């Protein structure tokens, strides 16, 4: 194999050879290489197949903008990272990488047939073709297309690595460490600012790692070394390499992704793989540089065709020649320096095809003097070669026409259409971009944040001018941070932007003869979008660039069109006959380059994904083999299976135990809010629909809270424990929002009320003891309260002691049985629970879970807010208007209840449903139809909200919201299901003990 590595030069360490594998073949590289540079050093250009046409593709660039060279890097089954840009993958000993989107191999890929059939795959092809039959999309077309037009595959194993998150503040964050970034950083740090400097590459220096021109009288590498050394000594400076600023969020929050171990052959165990930084900077200096634009000509995608600047970088940073015989196609002087250095390094420059009618001046002259053939007024007619470019056919532009084709054999074509400033982050920050006619690019205009752009990303290319621009930006940023103000506006670069040679730019497709060849001219390499696709889109009537983008998918690949967007705009503008700025820009979106899910997730996975809330009695339930369910963040015991019972069997047994003897239930998750103060009763009157003034101390009441729009928001038992004190309970999930609503009214509407609110949910353990034997069970444990039926009737509340500890005891029931809820300090919860359970063993006590609780309450027609209500249910709809305080002039939501639609007779009302077959349990959420045998669209009158098998009743029960439901008692309705409709009878929602004799026993 030919070796394309120079004997000297570059930033690689020739004393550290590294072995690596690509597609199963073994190669050698050096420390300091990227996968791309190491492959090129081995003469490998073919690294991938294109997205749609499966055309062979090579390495186009040397950086983040790479659209072609996407590879999967494999460490092990769980550490398999797809879609990495080979130009950014650092080589390590033993690295294994594979190409993507080819089968069976990169060199012989069956998908290649798509290229031959491309006439059948124009823009919008998917939208036009796979419309019929409807079912086939999901089953057939989509899976097939996804396989054929794939990126790499995601690993199937869980990610074994750790990812860290860091938060930081600084005065000035500098993005990019080229001449502009380093200068701004030195300036700002020199003025005393706390700075963070981030660089996406492994090494600081940016373009200075490629360019050889002296800077401030020093060789560029020495200048970089000195600048970095100076900053490294500054304790107020943080320098981050391998760190990409991927997102610019409001108020100068910048997301940085730092890759910590991906470059190591053996990452130390336990070391985080990546770190996500969230940096809040007073001022941001963007020194992100510029990206070279490719040229658009037929066959511009063959392996071996790359950006001229990339070839320059491979030569000077990695000591790699990208070929032995190259043709350079350029629009300006800036590529001549690369040509001369490549020539000096032994790359034969077969020709420089200059697009300009005349190439004069110092650099073209030097090229000519070096014996390089400079062809003025050139264009490219086409290229040839199968898996690598073998020749380029040039034309000459004369008098507006294209003539005199000439083929030049070569193994590399190095092209340049000028530079596109990297305004991605500036645009993300909602800064306005302005079209600069002179440079033919968009440049940062009015900033929306505290931000400064400097250097090439600001349209300033000449080195001396870059240094001045960056020093001014660094000083402005540091000054702004010191004064706490926005940075003083620097003079808009405009005319002062020194750009000289680099101003040369070429946008759009190169001129072609009237009868052009058939090969494709690619605009977007990664998504295989050609000039023809863009033309077709405009011909089919698309005018907005945003629509053209979505129709053709140009710029929508993972590279987000870094190399393609401006060319695409120019082509669309040309077809529409409007100036480029009128076509406009598409939105730059974060992330700048893809960021791993692991980085975003950080430690938030598995057990740490969400906080878990458990009650004081959790361990007891766990020991009893309870099956838990998630209710919000709470873990609640759902049922307690015995001897291999399934849920239905366990629930049937638990329910019968409660109805027949006694059940014990952990109700600690109920929300609890203490409402205290001289105006507590007035406050409760204004909020809840009920009347509270007449509630005596030691009594409780079922309270209903509405929103101002009249719909049920929450419910719960409210006890008056003192004249100025209410113990408010809420639903398990509703506690935070109820407290927030209370605080809202307290702080903003009624600040004159003397009332204080405290969440006490976690201070109390709540043990519900329910059933005909409940009094007997707890009697012996209690001191200080007479709990006889006469002395402590339903809805009583009292303070006393249980097992010697203070207790707030409620005589309440969510089961319809006579029962109690014992409230003790959370720390005593488990001990009291165990004592009650032990005392209950003589009375047939059984623990029951939330599933049985649901069945027991549904048998009584008690609603669950959020299950039987859905934010459109009024108290009357739910059959709860009896709870309304009759003499109250106002409460939250009262006025809304008087609106005409709230009084309509056909509102959905809560009713019971009984299936004709007692064993049939309806599906919750099932629709209810008025008439049998309807075909869709049916006339539907309601839906099932709760449905269970009732063991005590021996038949199924259901609650439903049915239009005008209370007037339909006794009617037969129909629940349509996939396997036929189920006839149901409308009943009262109270199925068990409608007189409430058991409740009051």
């Amino acid at each position, binding site marked *: 194999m030919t070796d394309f590595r120079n004997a000297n030069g570059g930033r690689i360490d020739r004393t550290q050879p590294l072995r690596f594998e690509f597609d199963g073949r073994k190669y050698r590289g050096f420390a300091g290489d990227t996968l791309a540079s190491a492959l090129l050093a081995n003469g490998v250009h073919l690294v991938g197949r294109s997205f749609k046409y499966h055309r062979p593709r090579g390495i186009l660039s040397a950086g983040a903008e790479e659209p072609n060279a996407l590879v999967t890097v494999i460490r092990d089954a769980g550490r398999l990272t797809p879609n990495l840009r080979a130009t950014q993958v650092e080589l390590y000993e033993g690295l294994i990488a594979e190409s993507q989107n080819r089968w069976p191999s990169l060199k012989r890929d069956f998908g290649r047939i798509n290229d031959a059939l491309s006439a059948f795959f124009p823009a919008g092809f998917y939208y036009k073709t796979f419309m019929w039959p409807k079912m086939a999309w999901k089953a057939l077309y989509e899976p097939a297309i996804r396989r054929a037009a794939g990126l790499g595959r995601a690993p199937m194993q869980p990610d074994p690595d750790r990812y860290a998150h860091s938060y930081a503040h600084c005065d000035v964050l500098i993005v990019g460490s080229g001449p502009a970034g380093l200068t701004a950083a030195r300036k700002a740090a020199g003025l005393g600012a706390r700075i963070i400097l981030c660089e996406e590459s492994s090494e600081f220096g940016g373009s200075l790692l490629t360019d050889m021109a002296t800077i401030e009288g020093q060789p560029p590498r020495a200048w970089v070394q000195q600048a970095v050394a100076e900053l490294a000594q500054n304790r107020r400076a943080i320098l981050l390499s391998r760190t990409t600023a991927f997102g610019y969020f*409001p108020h100068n929050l910048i997301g940085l992704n730092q890759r910590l171990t991906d470059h190591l052959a053996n990452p130390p165990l336990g070391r985080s793989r990546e770190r996500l930084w969230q940096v809040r900077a007073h001022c941001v200096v963007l020194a992100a540089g510029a990206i070279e634009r490719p040229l658009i000509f037929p066959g511009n995608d063959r392996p071996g065709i790359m950006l001229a600047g990339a070839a320059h970088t491979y030569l000077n940073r990695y000591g790699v020649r990208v070929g032995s015989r190259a043709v350079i196609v350029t629009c300006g002087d800036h590529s001549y320096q690369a040509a001369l250095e490549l020539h000096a390094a032994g790359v034969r420059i077969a020709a420089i095809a200059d697009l300009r009618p005349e190439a004069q001046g110092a650099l073209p002259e030097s090229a000519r003097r070096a014996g390089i053939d400079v062809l003025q007024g050139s264009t490219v007619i086409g290229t040839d070669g199968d898996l690598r470019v073998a020749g380029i056919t040039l034309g000459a532009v004369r008098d507006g026409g294209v003539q005199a084709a000439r083929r030049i054999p070569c193994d590399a074509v190095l092209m340049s259409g000028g530079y596109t400033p990297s305004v991605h982050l500036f645009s993300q920050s909602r800064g306005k971009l302005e079209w600069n006619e002179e440079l033919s690019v968009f440049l940062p205009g009015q900033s929306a944040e505290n931000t400064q752009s400097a250097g090439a990303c600001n349209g300033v290319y000449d080195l001396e001018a870059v240094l001045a621009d960056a020093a001014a930006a660094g000083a402005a940023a540091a000054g702004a941070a010191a004064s706490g103000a926005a940075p003083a506006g620097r003079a808009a670069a405009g005319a002062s932007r020194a750009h000289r040679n680099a101003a040369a730019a070429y946008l759009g497709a190169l001129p072609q003869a009237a009868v052009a060849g058939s090969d494709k001219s690619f605009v977007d390499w990664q998504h295989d979008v050609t000039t023809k696709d863009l033309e077709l889109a405009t011909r089919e009537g698309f005018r907005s660039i945003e629509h053209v983008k979505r129709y053709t998918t140009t710029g929508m690949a993972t590279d987000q069109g870094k190399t393609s967007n401006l060319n695409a705009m120019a082509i669309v503008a040309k077809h529409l006959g409007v100036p480029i700025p009128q076509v406009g820009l598409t939105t730059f979106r974060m992330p700048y380059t893809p960021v791993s899910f692991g980085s975003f997730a950080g430690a938030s996975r598995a057990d740490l994904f969400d906080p878990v809330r458990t009650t004081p009695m959790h361990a007891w339930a766990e020991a009893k083999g309870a099956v838990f369910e998630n209710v919000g963040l709470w873990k609640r015991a759902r049922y307690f299976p015995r001897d291999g019972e399934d849920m239905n069997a366990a629930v049937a047994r638990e329910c019968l135990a409660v109805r027949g003897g006694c059940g014990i239930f952990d109700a600690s998750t109920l929300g609890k809010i203490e409402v205290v103060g001289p105006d507590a009763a007035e406050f409760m009157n204004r909020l809840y629909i009920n009347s509270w003034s007449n509630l005596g101390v030691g009594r409780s009441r079922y309270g209903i809270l509405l929103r101002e729009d009249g719909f049920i928001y929450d419910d719960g038992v409210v006890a008056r424990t003192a004249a100025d004190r209410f113990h408010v309970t809420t639903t398990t999930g509703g506690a935070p929002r109820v407290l927030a609503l209370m605080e809202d009214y307290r*702080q903003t509407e009624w600040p004159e009320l003397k009332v204080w609110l405290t969440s006490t949910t976690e201070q109390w353990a709540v043990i519900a003891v329910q059933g005909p034997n409940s009094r007997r069970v707890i009697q012996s444990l209690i001191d200080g309260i007479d709990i006889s039926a006469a002395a402590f009737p339903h809805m009583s509340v009292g303070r006393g002691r249980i097992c010697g500890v203070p207790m707030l005891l409620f005589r309440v029931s969510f089961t319809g049985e006579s029962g109690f809820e014992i409230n003790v300090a959370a720390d005593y919860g488990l001990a009291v629970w165990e004592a009650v359970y032990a005392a209950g063993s003589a009375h047939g006590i059984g623990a029951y879970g939330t599933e049985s609780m649901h069945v027991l309450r549904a048998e009584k027609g008690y609603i669950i807010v959020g299950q039987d209500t859905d934010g459109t249910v009024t108290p009357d709809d739910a059959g709860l208007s009896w709870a309304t305080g009759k003499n109250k002039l106002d409460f939250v939501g*009262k006025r809304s209840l008087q609106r005409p639609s709230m009084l309509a007779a056909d509102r959905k009302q809560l009713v019971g449903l009984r299936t004709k077959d007692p064993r049939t349990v309806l599906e919750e959420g099932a629709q209810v139809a008025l008439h049998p045998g309807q075909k869709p669209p049916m006339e539907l009158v309601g839906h099932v909200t709760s449905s269970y098998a009732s063991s005590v009743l021996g038949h199924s029960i259901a609650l439903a919201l049915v239009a005008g439901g209370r007037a339909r008692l006794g009617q037969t309705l129909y629940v349509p299901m996939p396997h036929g409709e189920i006839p149901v009878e409308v009943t009262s929602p109270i199925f068990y003990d409608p007189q409430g004799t058991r409740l009051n026993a």
Partner: protein
Amino acid sequence: MLLIPCPYCGERPEIEFTHGGQAHLVRPAQPADLDDQAWAEFLYMRTNTKGIHAERWRHAHGCGQFFNALRDTTTDHFLAVYKIGTPRPAT
């Protein structure tokens, strides 16, 4: 993520706050006196300002206090924060 200047605690990240909707809506003292149209206006109609918008925030995971803020909806810049019950500052 916005940086919100709580008048009680100073600048804190947005994640500590809940948004409270449009500011300076006052609940009528006697809602029963309003006709359906007027009540619906109070209940449902909100401005959709492009530019400077007075809105309520609550430092829910901090001091718990509601306060008002003037925010430019085009830039998300906060121009002023002020306590509940105080008038909207001139801009």
